[in-house]
């Protein structure tokens, strides 16, 4: 049972303290212990990072007919960390035309993640 159990370490970013939090798991990947956090937020943070780390992705897309050649974009909410490069692959293909307004949806439901790609400025 314990031959495949392991642990991973995370630096908590909930406050400037930056606790080194260790998450121990058993062979089935279930969390067995969370150590090193000084508060409850640290435990929640480390559990989330262990099970499904999420990140807001920001990048740019190619735009024609505008003052600048790149339009900044963001995901409307966080996406799974392990899908970030796949999302970048989709973002790279986009070529749009000006004008665009901040908040406009540039790509709907990226990779079926239920998250939109939105413009972050007028251009």
């Amino acid at each position, binding site marked *: 049972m314990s031959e495949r159990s392991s642990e991973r370490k995370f630096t908590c970013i909930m406050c400037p303290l930056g606790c080194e939090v260790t998450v121990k798991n058993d062979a089935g990947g279930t969390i067995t212990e969370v150590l090193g956090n000084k508060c409850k937020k640290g435990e929640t943070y480390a559990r989330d990072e262990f099970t499904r780390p999420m990140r807001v992705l920001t*990048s740019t897309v*190619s735009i024609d007919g505008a003052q600048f050649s790149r339009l900044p974009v*963001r995901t409307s909410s966080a996406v799974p960390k392990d899908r970030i490069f796949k999302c970048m692959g989709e973002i790279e293909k986009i070529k749009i035309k000006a004008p665009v307004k901040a908040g406009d949806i540039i790509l709907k439901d990226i990779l079926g993640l239920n998250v939109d790609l939105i413009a972050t400025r007028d251009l």
Partner: protein
Amino acid sequence: MLKKNADIIVIGAGPGGMAAALKANELGIKKILLVDRLPEMGGILQQCIHNGFGLQMFKKDWTGPEYADHYIKKINNTNIEVLLNTMALEITKDGRVILSNSTDGLIEVTAKAKVFAMGCRERTRQQVSIPGTRPSGIFTAGVAQRFVNIEGYMPGKDVVVVGSGDIGMIMARRMTLEGAKVHAVTEVLPYPGGLTRNVVQCLQDYNIPLYLNHNVVEIYGKDRVEGVKISGEKTFDVQCDTLLFSVGLIPENELSRMVPLDINPITGGPYIDDTYETTQEGVFICGNAAFVNDLADYVSIEAEIAGEGAANYVSNPLRNKVGVEIVAGENVRLLVPNFITRNDQATLYLRVKEPMLDVKIVSTDGIVALKKQIVKPSEMVEIKLNSEQLAKVKKLKELKIDVGKI
């Protein structure tokens, strides 16, 4: 020469200048002139496409352009006069401001009050004295950020970042997302220069190695960067075609020197009081031109105080300000503002010399007595003073603040 009059001229339309102009407008100042050399407002926010802006000010997790947009739309709804593509060239001996642009030529502005919001510049390779050849492929992190995020050019494919400032770490992630390989981030100090959240989300997320206590000691390559020698605990070579420098920021104060204002060698900005007025009456300064801040949010907060100060000066220039000097004590690298004049409330910002655990921050007569579990040079400590504390401060000749172990 075209002549203009204004109640307040604000120089620089980044987060500082925009917030200062808006605050003065809100307080009823009629003629406000906001000047920027770029073709649009927002300053460096426009190239900071990452999120993390507005967490303090608005409880929002905005990107730089979104944070800028919030202010730009507000300004466009006022009668603040905005002059873009316009460079502030000179402050004359009698305090007029000389501007220049390609439609009006030279413009001479006479303003009752001035707010400087010129931001800061990046330190370059030359300022950290790294020997070697002078090939192409060497950029500051902020220049690379503008190339990638606005102009759409990739500076290179194999990257080493010198210095672990926030922009350096953010660009390490950005270059990685755009297909480059970031081989190393070096930091000469034993701790990162930027925020912990950037160490985690920009470097650790992408397995980018951070070499603390290491420095780039030589640059190889004749026409293009071919590699670097990194030295610290161990010495090794890394092949790369691009070097990004993120080795600190310098407040931009060419205009301040013309006033003339003395520059504080610790902050790189002029000496200021708690209304962000400089030693020259009617000249205010805010944001990274005054001292380098960690967050745009802090810049906006300070800028509102500067805007309010300028507005008050325009309404009532005959004030009788009495300042108590603020003195940086043990383990304090930076402490601003330099003088306390207000009676209602004031906020001081303090930077420590090195990271410390379990500290107390105490002042003369125990007026300030704070405890912190951790303090780091990369994260400013905010010290808020209320009217009761300020009344006690006003009886002192100076207020000295020390940081020590509990």
